[in-house]
């Protein structure tokens, strides 16, 4: 600020204003910023993204460099969002592994289910988290209406009761930033959510998710199926990253996770193969019944001469050094994702079990819905922090997310037991479902259709 006489006053610690402030520069916060940057109705607005870390460098994702252990199964719907945001080519030019098929099976019975879409249509792409974060970051810096501050920590958030006042964030360096809308994309322990006082339901699964990068060997030399086996401690999933490397997500008890993390590599590989192949928990009565039912089912293509090909997961041969990490698993959902001058997206609003790989996909859907609603608000001259508009985001996002979250929660509970009655029920259910082509296709399209 320039005063008469030419004195320059430092703007430091002064309060500044942005129309919207996004707290959190992760996969969802960055996607939100890119969406608003491209939003035609938002070109005259100012948006600030606050990131506690630094943006990952894209050069660490060149072919041949080791894979990062945090990966995400990106649904076709999310790929469409990436295309709209203009980051898909960038991501693909580094590495994104196309998965054509998802195969789910049970450690307690021979029941199984496989998901495939039409030829050349992917079920998902497996992509490293930081590659997505970095690509989105690079994109958002192209937009004039988006400002970014990296390596800043938010000290305090304040959200007003009515539109009469602004929301603000106070940074650790004392800077205060006022805004019409505070967007919380700051993860499970969201500071924005705490400041909002929104009701939040949460519980822990008493499970930890162990991730690692593993080398695998397949009979065909191809690795384009994602595998998931339900065991009584939790599901084990192998997500392809290349023809010889997969990302592991192994949900198990906290003690087991701790033990597995510290095992020598070769022992870890043995235990992992055993979790994928062991027949110890198989229930013979259920299996005989399934066998009989399959023979009777005229709709099942394999009824006469079952195809063994493609029903056996790859063998794990090695685990990448220092790639093992674990974190607690839990469920959480804010009863409302919004209040005056505040919206929550991604893990800040909801958290779920990783077994279906849906968590961050829901976050991107949040960002897409919120972006549309904010565009409407801007175009109609409204205050973008107004609940009249934000509530539209809340109801659309809750309606989209809750069925997925509840189903995944139920699945996790259903498969954590070897009680014969439940094993039988889930096995017959899954098996029947797998043989009902039209019903299955409907579900696949619901989950992955290009919307």
């Amino acid at each position, binding site marked *: 600020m320039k005063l008469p006489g030419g004195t320059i006053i430092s703007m430091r610690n002064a309060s500044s204003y942005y*129309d919207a402030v996004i707290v959190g520069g992760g996969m969802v916060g960055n996607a939100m910023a890119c969406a608003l940057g491209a939003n035609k109705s938002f070109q005259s607005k100012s948006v600030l993204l606050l990131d506690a870390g630094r943006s990952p460098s894209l050069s660490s994702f060149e072919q041949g460099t080791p894979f990062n252990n945090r990966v995400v199964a990106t649904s076709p719907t999310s790929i469409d969002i990436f295309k709209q945001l203009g980051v898909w080519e960038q991501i693909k030019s580094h590495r994104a592994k196309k998965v054509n098929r998802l195969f789910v099976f049970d450690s307690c019975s021979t029941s199984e289910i496989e998901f495939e879409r039409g030829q050349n249509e992917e079920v998902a792409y497996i992509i490293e988290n930081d590659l997505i974060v970095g690509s989105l970051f690079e994109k958002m810096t192209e937009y004039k209406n988006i400002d970014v501050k990296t390596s800043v920590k938010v000290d305090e958030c304040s959200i007003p009761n009515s539109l*009469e006042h602004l929301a603000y964030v106070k940074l650790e360096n004392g800077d205060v930033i006022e805004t019409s809308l505070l967007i919380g994309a700051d993860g499970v322990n969201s500071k924005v959510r705490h400041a909002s006082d929104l009701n939040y339901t949460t519980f822990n699964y008493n499970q930890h998710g162990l991730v690692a990068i593993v080398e695998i060997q397949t009979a065909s030399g191809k690795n384009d199926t994602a595998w998931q086996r339900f065991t009584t401690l939790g599901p084990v999933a192998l997500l392809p990253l290349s023809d010889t490397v997969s990302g592991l997500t192994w949900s198990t008890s906290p003690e087991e996770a701790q033990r597995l993390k510290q095992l020598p590599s070769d022992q870890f590989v043995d235990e992992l193969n055993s979790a994928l192949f062991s027949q110890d928990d198989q229930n013979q009565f259920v299996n005989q019944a399934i066998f009989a039912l399959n023979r009777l089912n005229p709709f099942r293509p394999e009824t006469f001469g079952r195809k063994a090909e493609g029903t056996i997961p790859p063998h794990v041969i090695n685990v990448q050094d220092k790639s093992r990490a674990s974190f607690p698993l839990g469920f959480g959902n804010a009863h409302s994702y919004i209040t005056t001058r505040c919206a929550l997206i991604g893990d800040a609003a909801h958290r779920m079990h990783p077994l279906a790989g849906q968590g961050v996909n829901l976050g991107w859907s949040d960002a897409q819905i919120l972006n549309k609603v904010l565009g409407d608000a801007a175009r109609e001259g409204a205050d973008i922090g107004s609940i*009249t508009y934000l509530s539209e985001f809340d109801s659309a996002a809750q309606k989209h997310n809750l069925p997925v979250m509840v189903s995944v929660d139920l699945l996790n509970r259903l498969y954590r037991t070897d009680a014969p009655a439940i094993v039988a029920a889930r096995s017959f259910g899954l098996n029947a479902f797998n043989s009902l082509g039209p019903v299955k296709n409907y579900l696949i399209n619901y989950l992955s259709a290009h919307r």
Partner: protein
Amino acid sequence: MLNTLNGLKYIRLTKIRCPQKRCQSNAVSASSIDSDEVEKFGKLSSEWADELGSFHALHSLNRIRVPWIVENVNKIKRTNPPRLVDVGSGGGLLSIPLAKCGFDVTGIDATQRAVEAANRSLEAKPLNLSGVSERLRFQHTSVEEFCQRAENKSGYDAVVGSEIVEHVADLNRFVNSLAELARPGAPLFITTINRTMMSKLTAIWLAENVMKIVPAGVHNWEKFVTPEELSAVLFDSGCSVVATQGIMYHPVGNHWTWINSTQCNYAILAVKN
């Protein structure tokens, strides 16, 4: 079932309409204004910014009336930025979005405290930084007095009277004054409530006597205006009605939709000849 729905709609409407109407004040000279309303709603002036308070349905009504006004004004030849007058602007609930959409807006209202609240909102940072405050002003006056000023006669590219005509004491004078403000070819946007048996049942009997959502006597059903009457008065004032369309409030979800029936709430678009 339909009756029930309409009833709900009316109840909500009734609740919101009153505040909007605080148009007339003793301080302002003789006019079409009903002075009792002013005091009633002066008390609500602090609530204008509260989206969940007394005005929540007016906040949500913006979702259809703002695009309606913006799209229709953009169709015609106009100055840049287009000059618009919002008669009965209250706390600026409609004037501010219109100014943010690019109009130069003058809001007039007869309730001093509402105008004060509106002026306070002009100091808000978002409006100042974006320059919206510079093309937006509020005045405490009556429309009759306002339209007598030389600079205002035929001085506006668009005239808005939203949720106001059903509260004025003299409909002819009021509409005449609105027409005075519009330059030839300029659109007039009016939203109000019809005078039907449905509205008597719901807005008056149900809302005031049964559910006691509003104090008895706050609404005068006889003063509600039918689309035919409003069209006739507009015609007499030198305007042609271009379109009449019903609007409906959905209390569950607090939103509005355009409907064909004008039994309850409706909107009229007219053009000054």
